[in-house]
Every structure is written in C-alpha cells, then in structure tokens.
C-alpha cells in the first residue's frame, strides 16, 4: 500500500527523485508511484516542481519585501475578493490571511527596493478596502523552505573517516 504522505514528504524534500528510487524507498512498484504522482498532480495536491535558488549568490540581487496590509473585509466575500485582486499581480509572490495585528501578509519581489516601494504605493495602497500598508524589506535570507541559506550556518559535512566509529 502506497501512503501518499510518505510519497509527498519525499518529493517535498527532493523533487528530483525518480520513480525507481521512490519505489525502492517506499516498497511499492514503480507503476504505483507513477500513477500516484499523476493522481496527486491532477487533484492539485502537488502544485508544481521548482528549484530553490539562493539569488544572493547570483550577481544581481533582487529585492523582496513583506507587506503588512490592513484591510476592510467585504460583506459577502470577506477577505477573498481583495486577496484575489492582490495575487493577480505578477510581482506578488505570496498572499496569506493572518491572525494578529494585521490582515494580509503579501510578499513582493522586484528588481530594486524602490521598484517595490513604487509598486506598493501605486498598486496596493489604492485598492479599495486597503486601510494601511507597512513595507518590510528582506535584508538577508537565513533560511527558506527549510533550507539554510546563510553561508556561515550552511550545512557542512565535517565528519572525518575515523577508523573506530
């Protein structure tokens, strides 16, 4: 029996694993793996396969910011409608409804900080229902998607080849 959770955990950790490798690890046939993956893709459980890039290591660093939005929810559609408008912008990387001191957490990527500032001022702030915005720029990424990015803390294998281990 193939457990979807185990399959998904493995793929979430490393999307490059082949059906053959997955079948060995999960103790099911390659065919079962293939059809389970196809089904999960179709059902929208698997939303895609991407590469985790540390752009800070590439010459032109991009800017990213977390924007806190306070908004007035619509009577019928609540926060959904306003969130829907915001997430249509290609500059917006993620939108989430939050508990606590503000409503929507929006991450925005741009070439420069001023691009992002302009985007917030021209596109987000004027949206009907947006009460206030607070822009926080990302200065350094220490860890993302469960992976450590900061070079000083990066995983290194310092295990020697001890005879007596």
């Amino acid at each position, binding site marked *: 029996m193939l457990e979807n959770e185990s399959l998904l955990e*493995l793929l979430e950790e490393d999307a490059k694993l082949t059906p053959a490798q997955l079948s060995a690890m999960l103790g099911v046939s390659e065919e079962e793996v293939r059809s389970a993956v196809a089904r999960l893709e179709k059902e929208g459980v698997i939303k895609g396969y991407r590469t985790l890039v540390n752009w800070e290591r590439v010459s032109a660093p991009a800017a990213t910011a977390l924007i806190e939005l306070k908004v007035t929810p619509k009577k019928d559609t609540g926060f959904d409608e306003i969130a829907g408008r915001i997430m249509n912008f290609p500059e917006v990387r993620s939108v989430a409804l939050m508990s606590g001191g503000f409503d929507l957490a929006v991450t925005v990527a741009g070439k420069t900080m001023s691009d992002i500032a302009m985007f917030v001022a021209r596109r987000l702030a004027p949206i009907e229902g947006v009460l206030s915005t607070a822009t926080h720029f990302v200065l350094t990424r220490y860890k993302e998607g469960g992976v450590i990015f900061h070079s000083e803390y990066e995983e290194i294998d310092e*295990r020697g080849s001890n*005879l007596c*281990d």
Partner: protein
Amino acid sequence: MIDYTQRTNRILQQLPPSGIRRFFDIANEMEDVISLSVGEPDFHTPWHIREEGIASLEKGRTRYTPNRGFAALRQEIGRFLSRHYAVDYDPATEILVTVGGSEAIDLCVRSLLNPGDEVLIPEPSFVCYVPITRMAGGVPVTVETRAENGFRLTAEALEAKITAKSKLLILPYPNNPTGAVMRREDLEAVARVVERHGLLVLSDEIYAELTYGGAAHVAFSSLPGMRERTVLINGFSKTYSMTGWRLGYAAGPREILALMTKLHQFAIMSAPTTSQYAAIEALKNGDEDVAYMRRQYDLRRRLIVDGLNKMGLPCFEPEGAFYVFPSIQSTGLTSQAFCEKLLYARRVAVVPGDAFGASGEGYVRISYSYSIAHIAEALERIHAFLQHDL
C-alpha cells in the same frame, strides 16, 4: 638517544596498525570524493537537546559531576532501559555514565579479565574489541559469522570456539559493519551456550534504537538468567546523533559495575558535564527525534539495498545500525582492491570489509548515514564503476 621501543608498552607496539588508515589518507587528499565511509550520523543533535547543553553552560554548570554521572541522568537511563527493553537497573548501583560507549567497553573488559582469559568476539565487528582485549592481557578468540546466516552469531559457531579459558563473550548487535540483528530466538540459543559454559557477556547495544522492519531490539539481559551475566552497553552517539558529546553508559550487576566505576574514577573522573545535561533532555524528550531519524535511515536503507542488488552487488538485508555489507566477490577483487579501484576510478569511498576482521574479506561496508541525494549520486558512480572500470 632513547630506544623508545624498549621503553614503551610492548603489547601496544605489537598491535597491528589499521589497514584502512592509508586508504582514508588517500581519500582525504582527493577532490570531489563522495564518501559512504563514516560511521556516525549525519543528523545534527536535535536542537532542544543542544539547547539544554547551552543553558547549563550559561548557568555556569561547568564542574565535575559525581563519578557515576548525575543521579538524574542515571535515573533517566534506568527509565529508558525499562521503557524500551523491559530491563530494570538500579540507578544508584547498577548504572555508570561513561565517555562514549567505547569507554564502557574498555572498562568492562579491563574489569573482568585476568591475564590469559579468552574473549569470544564475533566477526566481522567493530574494530576495538580485539585491541582492548589484548591491552587487558586477554586473548581474543574470533568467531566468524557468515552472510548465509545473516551474519548472526549461531550457537554452533560459538560452541566450537569455547575452551576452558573462555571467560567473556562480546555480543555486538545490531552489528557494525554488517547491519545484522539478533532475534529473540537467536539470543536464546546463545544464552543456552553462555549458561552451560558459565560465560560473562558484554552486550554492545549502541545501535539498539536503530532497527528496521518491525523487529524491535531485544536486550540480551532481558533473557531469563542473563541479567546476572551481562553488562549492557549503550550510549547517546548513534541514538540521538550525539557523537561529539562523548557520552555512553553501562548497566549490569552491581559487583561488576562497582569495579568499572572504580576504574572509571581513577582514569576519567567523570563524563563531560555539559553532555550529561544535554543527555537528560535527550532521554526525557527525544523519542520523537529518534523515531524521525529511524524513518529517514530506513528510507535510505531501502534505496541503497535495492540499488546495490540491482547492480549485481548482492546485499543481505541489514536490519539494524546504518550500514550495508554487500558482497563484492562477483568482481573477483579483494575488498582492499575493490575499494582502491572504486576510489581512483569514480571517487567513491567505502570501507573494505576485512578491516572488521578476516571474515569480512569479500565484502565492503557502506554507510547510509548520508542524504538521499548523496546516496543516489554514489550509487550511480558505483554502477558506472561496475560497468566500465573492471
């Protein structure tokens, strides 16, 4: 000029140098080597355990502990052994905290042996039993185990090596380097031989928490009549990924533990204080971490066993520790030659099986305490090696 050979310990001088030291030296010099050779976990010590160590330092807890180790730690060890293996030890008199499982092995052997006593050592196994036995004036008697028996120790093989001088049996299961585990019925058969010949047993159970495929570890001392004959050794290194903390323990009859403690207090004083604080946290709240790591090791184990079998390096199914021990006999090479060629041709480092005793010849030890991506890459290289370089 002083002739140091005349002024230093003769037994130590005569211990053969390690056959694989040279091999590791070569591997360490090379670029782009993928190693599957180490015998320690790749996981970091879980953060909540590290935090307890740090907190103890912040509070200035930097002094010696009692010789036996903190009472609170011994109590937790007692609870752990009882909870996991249904063996009960008195924390006050039957448990000793040591500098790694290795110190416990050394203490135990030195506390039990008189010159000329024979120590029965199943092979292939951890490389330290023979030297420690020799240094204690004992005579190592190896008992070969075989792939066709799943590298388990059989009563017949043991019986065949017993003499009037046999005193101590070392039981290294789950086994490094083969990954073999002893099931209850295997242990019962060994226990009958132990009983019949009045042997003592050092049960090195350092990998006890790392077994796969459903069969939980059975502590040898949990068998009827074996508690009074057995020193159980375990530790934190493999279970909680705490190798560098250097912390292990022994549990056994109070008379033996009293001798081991005497030796420990003269030689070591007490095990590292910071590590003991961290270890209390590990035992109290670490079961989930162990379950997580065990699951990860199991996935890797399946990947590597499948990969090796498919490429024609037959692998008996290892059920414990984090090693596989495939046969390389189909290549016609010796273990040493196989490892050297593989290293030079494809830059993959694995350990020749004969490093763990003569009966390991024809095998190599491959560790899977590496990430899945690392293992997958190494398997590809080994496959290419078998296809193109022989």
